[in-house]
């Protein structure tokens, strides 16, 4: 396996956008916002009231009936998945030496990222907290009012 290393002192190409730089900035900007989003998420779901034992369908239904938590969770979903996927891309680039394997892995990472973003966004924004025909005891209390 031979690796081609660019001549160290050659200037970087100025053709096209500098995507590595935007990726580098994205990791830092998204990271700073994610601190607040993730700490708030853990506090609201695990520290308040009965914590983990309170989490069920009705709990999630109650949260997403509020646009505040829909936007919170939606932002967290997009920022964290793109941040995590781009971080995994860096790691793959570091350790995978065979070009075609490396390209396939990076491609797979972005496909998974895109699929989960679409799935998660649909779940948050098309969610019905009171599905017809469900056992009312499993639903948020506002369904039966």
């Amino acid at each position, binding site marked *: 396996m031979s690796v081609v290393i660019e001549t160290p002192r050659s200037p970087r190409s100025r053709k096209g956008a500098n995507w590595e730089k935007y990726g580098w900035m994205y990791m*830092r900007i998204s*990271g*700073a916002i*994610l*601190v607040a989003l*993730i*700490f708030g998420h*853990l506090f609201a779901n*695990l*520290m308040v009231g*009965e*914590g*983990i*034992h309170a*989490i*069920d*369908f*009705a709990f*999630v*239904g109650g949260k997403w009936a509020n646009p505040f938590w829909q936007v919170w969770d939606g932002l967290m*979903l997009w920022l*964290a*998945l793109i941040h*995590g*996927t781009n*971080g*995994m891309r860096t*790691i793959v680039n570091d350790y995978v030496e065979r070009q075609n394997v490396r390209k396939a892995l990076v491609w797979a990472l972005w496909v*998974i990222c895109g699929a*989960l973003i679409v*799935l*998660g966004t*649909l*779940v948050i924004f*098309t*969610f019905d907290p009171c*599905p017809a025909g*469900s*056992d009312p005891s*499993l*639903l948020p209390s506002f369904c039966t009012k």
Partner: protein
Amino acid sequence: MPTKPAGTLYRGKVGMWSWVLHRITGVAIFFFLLVHVLDTALVRLSPEAYNAVISTYKTPLIGLAETGLVVAILYHALNGVRIILVDFWRKGAKYQNKMWWAVLVICVALFVPFAIRHLSNVFHIG
């Protein structure tokens, strides 16, 4: 007299270990996030399906694993802030070593109250 190679900014010191831990915790959180988006998506299927899967999160085993996950998140988040300060704060590089120890202290300071509250919920204490 041959001497051992002097350490560099990164090799074998805080600069290296902080990075090793940042990388490992980043990967762990990434894989958890994949699972977490999928388990949450079950709310779209039925209340029964979601409740069945989420009830496994309430077992002692997963309760403990979740505590470990929070350790990883605390470290990655706070060390991430340290990286941002090293890159953007004028004195960041000068204080990177001290800031790493501060990261560890703040991790412990946040972890202890979290663990007390979460584990007493998991094990129904109090």
